[in-house]
């Protein structure tokens, strides 16, 4: 599956997609978002929607010196956070700015094309399209846990991605120690 921007002219700049992306992993705010909506020079001119295009030959992966970005079947990349050294070359290589940065870990955040954001776009700006081959959205989850994405063949379902994210969240919390949210 591949996330796609249908029509930026329909975008009202509500940023619901950005919040959705962060919320997928149970987080509030916008720190964890892999999608960016911003005006193109003042609200009067409308918006641009920055999202990973799932390039067939992704420059971000080509410049990674440690092979932490694996080219995903069907386009785009998935991140092996354990390998990543946080050099930022991938971010510089992406001319549309779709490699987002996690300031807390000092590592990139990469869209896994799960389509959760599209579900929260109230005006049909975003959609999820089927690509020739697909791969599990668990790649992003892998990023969160630092264990690498678990690969699943065939039809990817959003529900499965969410389930996986819950597991990841639980793992995260137990790693941080109990009562982090008390």
């Amino acid at each position, binding site marked *: 599956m591949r996330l796609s921007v249908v029509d930026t002219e329909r975008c009202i700049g509500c940023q619901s997609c950005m919040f959705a992306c962060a919320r997928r992993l149970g987080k*509030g705010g916008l720190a964890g978002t892999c999608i960016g909506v911003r005006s193109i020079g*003042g609200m*009067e001119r409308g918006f641009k929607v920055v999202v990973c295009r799932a390039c067939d030959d992704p420059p971000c992966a080509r410049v990674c010196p440690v092979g932490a970005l694996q080219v995903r079947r069907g386009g785009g990349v998935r991140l092996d956070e354990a390998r990543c050294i946080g050099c930022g070359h991938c971010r510089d290589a992406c001319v549309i700015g779709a490699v987002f940065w996690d300031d807390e870990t000092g590592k990139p955040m990469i869209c896994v094309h799960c389509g959760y954001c599209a579900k929260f776009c*109230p005006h049909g700006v975003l959609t999820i399209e089927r690509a020739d081959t697909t791969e599990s959205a668990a790649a992003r989850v892998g990023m969160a846990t630092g264990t690498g994405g678990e690969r699943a063949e065939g039809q990817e379902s959003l529900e499965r991605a969410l389930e996986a994210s819950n597991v990841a969240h639980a793992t995260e*919390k137990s790693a941080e120690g109990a009562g982090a*949210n008390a």
Partner: protein
Amino acid sequence: MLRGDPLANVLYIDLSKKKHWVERREDLFEKSIGGAGAAVELLHEECPRGADPFSPENPIVFAVGPLTGLFPLASKTVAMFKSPHTGNLGESHAGGRSAVAIRTAGYGAIVIRGANDIPGYVAIHGSEVHFRDARTLWGMRDSFTVGRIIRENEPAAGLRSIMRIGRAGERLIPYACVTTESYRHFGRLGLGAVFGSKKLKAVVVSGKHSLPVGGGEGAAGAAEYRRVYDQIYQEAVASPVMKKYHDLGTPENVLPLNALGGLPTRNLKDARFEGADRISGEALAEHYLGRRLACSHCPVGCIHIAALREPDENEPYFYKTSMISYDYELIYALGSMLGGSDPEGLLKLIDRIEVYGLDAMSTGVVLAWATEAQERGLVSEDAAGGLRLAWGDYPAYLEAVRRIVEQPNEFYAALARGVEHAASVYGGEDFALAFGGNEMPGYHTGPGAHLGFLVGARHSHLDSAGYSVDQKVLMKRQIPPDELAREILKEERWRQVLSSLVVCFFARGIYSPERTAAALRVAGFEYTADDLKRIGADIHRRKYAFKFREGFSFETLRVPGRIFETPSPAGLLDGQYFQTVVDCVRKDIPAGGP
């Protein structure tokens, strides 16, 4: 609240000393939620009794709430200050990106103290605070240009708010606004002039903090967050009320209010406007709507922007296209109230007021009074510097607005101080339409609306939405004065909770007490619906405590006679009934306060 929630961080900025620091204030947010509740406490702490609103000792407080950045439509920032317009409680709300930016910058509230010695602006990027030179921006004619320059000078596009003033704020016009994201405003009660008095051109805020959620441990917490979120979101995108605000926006109300006979027209000499169908939400959408926008984290997107294409006066095939935000209140204040049915004239006047950074409602009511004052011979053409104002004459109104800002003579200097002041100089107080010193909003639906303006803590139609009581109840049957007083107070007290979360009032139907409690649980606040109602009443009392402290009194409230002369949809207003309701409200609000 959740341990480590950045909401408890209050950022203090001292403009005089160019210092800033953060204090953890869990006490504030646990007691009063956030937003209006936290802001009124900070105002009590920061503002000395009897402070001159234009002195450095008048603080500016911005506050957001626990749901900001977590739930849809919790998209507003509350500003509090002592109002230079009324000399009393100043409170104004705005959306745009301001609320999410403040919350994700890592703060629940920002307090600005002191004053700049030279024009400056403050840039807050997360934990960094910069005091920037704004001497070059000061005096710039067009506030859009100012926004553009700051946009280019500051980082964090898409994650920031740029709150700025125009010439009106610099010139200390007490009904100057603060504009954010080009089209949203801390409109009422003169925050722009308080900025101006501090030589503060703008406040930029950006952030990218993640926000903690509670609602259970680990995966269960995340799932609960998404469950509560999805309910609110689905209701927001599916409800007919929200669809109405998305389709036509607030101007949807023009035609229904006009049909009822509740649309103030020509300084409320009438309540029906024969030209309403030319400036209705439908007409503006059909001919001019160019774009719709949303505040950050609001899927509704009620902001409607007209594209106005104008030919150059001299050069053929030379056009300029302006993008102009319109809303119901602007159509009322600058359209029907001025007898204006030319949509292009109306849009140009809205644009001019935006450029100067004036409050549109106050400006419209001031112009309406000035037109009638001239009509009645209270103000000569000479006194007005050769200008003759006439209903619907937009070129004259455009010129009058320029003069209100520039103040070339005494008459415009008087207009620049508001309608109540102008009438105290020139007469015509009976048709000077202000309540508690604040120019009236666009509802002549019955006693509920006007009583709401009069006894509301900020003299706003949004305090208690009395127009809603008029339409739902009073148009059908009379109710005893004490019952109306109770209705108004009940609504205003509950709205203190919404404006402490801080939820947009358009979503008040979605954020019921029970659902609000569920959302707050996710944000780490354990309140029952009854707790919330009690807190709402407390906040309302604290606002009134400030008002009484600063000299407010129910006895001296002025009611413009005009509202009793023009029939409303609920009939002709009865002065005796009106006064009895005020007495009932007064009895319910202890003068001393806690």
